[in-house]
């Protein structure tokens, strides 16, 4: 553990610390960021109205749109000249989001990344190969300085040129690999193509992040490389990597709650969900100087577990995000994500193929039909077996989604595609 004195606080101590820091953050943001002052004034809320952690729901949300409207520096609480560094998150549409750090922010960030790595069992004796891109993206520099802080030996390889990466891995014998999970898989496949025995390489831990990945992906990576694969989470709007990370029990990612206050809301009603239910993760920073962020809607769908972990930490654990709130469907009052459908199909040998969900109204009720393109694995010349396969798919969906869907098999390539991918949701319900 990198900072056991805070990492082992109990729930009461965590919440006490959070309240004190929340009050400070709200005052600080109100007094130093015009956008926050205007928002709070418009709903007649004063910083002193925040008296308990529950009072946070009185505060307005912050979204990517706020960053866009205040581009580039409007959300900063400090004059940009006084800052130590600028990063940016790549926007999939339009301008990127600009984020800034004071010297103290960078120090906090390094501590949190050191904590993230130590959480997964990385120590000062480790040699770390970082294959994240170095640049405006927070992944490269974020992991770099955190691992240096931890005392590890850092090799800043950056991204690209897989053959060279493999040469460095075989020659320099790193013990930890830092990159995206998909790139790690690419490295593993390249090793195989070059006939290098993956068990001959020195890696023992993988710290993978910057994109969502599934448990199936973890299995694949741990089979293809001699590593244990750990997930971590973060986003540049609130800091970068180091918001939460898995411990060696791999039972959710511990949120570093002394620096971040999190909520889970229903993305539709914006109300808090019941404890332990899935919803959208909302983050408030508690110690940021350059860019305090209040109630940032991450769009990531996850759930929280606040029980004590086997590792000794009480810090809440978030599950791997199961999707983005933008992709959420509400079917007969139940929230459904495309990733859950994929999970259900993945659970049945051979089914994984293109699919589409068609939502319709039938006498004011929602009717949901899942169209699955048939493939050789799930086509039988016997009707009995064909029906059995359909029932299996329905059963698996019901188990995972909690609601029943109609399932129809359709011919291959018959689903509407955009940019090569089948369109996943067709909503004909109107509003």
């Amino acid at each position, binding site marked *: 553990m990198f900072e056991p004195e805070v990492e082992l606080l109990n729930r009461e101590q965590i919440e006490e610390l959070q309240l004190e820091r929340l009050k400070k953050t709200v005052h600080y943001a109100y007094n130093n960021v015009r956008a926050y002052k205007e928002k709070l004034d418009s709903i007649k809320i004063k910083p002193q109205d925040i008296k308990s952690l529950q009072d946070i729901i009185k505060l307005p949300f912050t979204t990517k749109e706020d960053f866009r409207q205040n581009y580039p520096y409007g959300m900063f609480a400090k004059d940009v000249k006084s800052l130590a560094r600028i990063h940016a998150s790549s926007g999939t549409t339009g301008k990127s989001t600009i984020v800034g750090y004071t010297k103290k922010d960078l120090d906090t960030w390094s501590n949190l990344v050191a904590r993230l790595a130590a959480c997964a069992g990385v120590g000062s004796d480790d040699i770390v190969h970082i294959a994240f891109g170095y640049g405006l993206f927070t992944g490269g520099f974020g992991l770099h300085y955190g691992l240096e802080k931890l005392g590890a030996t850092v090799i800043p390889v950056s991204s690209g040129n897989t053959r060279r990466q493999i040469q460095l891995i075989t020659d320099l014998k790193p013990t930890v690999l830092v990159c995206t999970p998909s790139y790690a898989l690419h490295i593993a496949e390249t090793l195989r193509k070059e006939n290098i025995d993956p068990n001959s390489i020195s890696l023992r831990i993988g710290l993978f992040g910057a994109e969502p990945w599934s448990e199936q992906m973890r299995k694949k990576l741990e089979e293809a490389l001699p590593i244990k694969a750990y997930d971590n989470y973060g986003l540049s709007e609130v800091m970068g990597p180091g918001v939460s990370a898995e411990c060696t029990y791999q039972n959710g990612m511990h949120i570093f709650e002394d620096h971040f206050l999190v909520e889970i809301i229903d993305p539709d009603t914006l109300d808090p969900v019941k404890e332990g239910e899935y919803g959208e993760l909302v983050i408030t920073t508690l110690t940021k100087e350059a860019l305090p962020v209040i109630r940032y809607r991450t769009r990531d769908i996850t759930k929280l577990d606040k029980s004590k972990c086997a590792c000794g930490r009480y810090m809440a654990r978030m599950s791997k995000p199961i999707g983005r709130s933008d992709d959420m469907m509400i079917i007969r009052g139940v929230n459904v994500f495309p990733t859950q459908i994929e999970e259900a199909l993945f659970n049945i040998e051979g089914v994984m193929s293109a699919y589409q969900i068609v939502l319709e109204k039938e006498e004011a009720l929602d009717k949901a039909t899942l169209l699955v393109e*048939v*493939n*050789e694995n799930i*086509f*039988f*010349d*016997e*009707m*009995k077996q*064909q029906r059995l396969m359909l029932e299996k798919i329905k059963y698996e969906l019901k188990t995972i989604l909690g609601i029943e869907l109609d399932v*129809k*098999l*359709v*011919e*291959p*390539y*018959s689903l509407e595609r955009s940019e090569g991918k089948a369109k996943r949701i067709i909503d004909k319900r109107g509003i």
Partner: protein
Amino acid sequence: MDYKITQISVFIENKKGRFYNVTKILKENNINIRALNLADTNDFGILRFCVNKPEVAYEALKKEHFIVKKNEILAALMEDRPGGLMELLEIINEADLNIEYVYTFVNAKAGHAVILLKFENIDEAYEKLKNKIHFLDQEYFIEN
């Protein structure tokens, strides 16, 4: 003699023109359909048939992105008269064999009927029945 007949099965959606498309592809490849059966539901159907050139049919349909499978069935000669089918099924019943599905066709030119049988275990079925039933081979579907 190879008693296993190669049957082609195709998944077709219950949409206008899909069945027609299959027959069109077969015609374009100069394939003669000898026996055919369609098992269908509201949404989809399983089209099964025996042709003179099963390999060519399989490849041609695959090329057009149909989901196609080859499977092995037995073809039994049946007398084209009342009771012909019943007597045959009686023999199968007595042998305690499970039939997955059957379909038939009449060969008018030759003056007999043929029954196509899909068993759970084709080898077991053939061994138990070969002395009581006259089975046809793949050649039959090419020449006659």
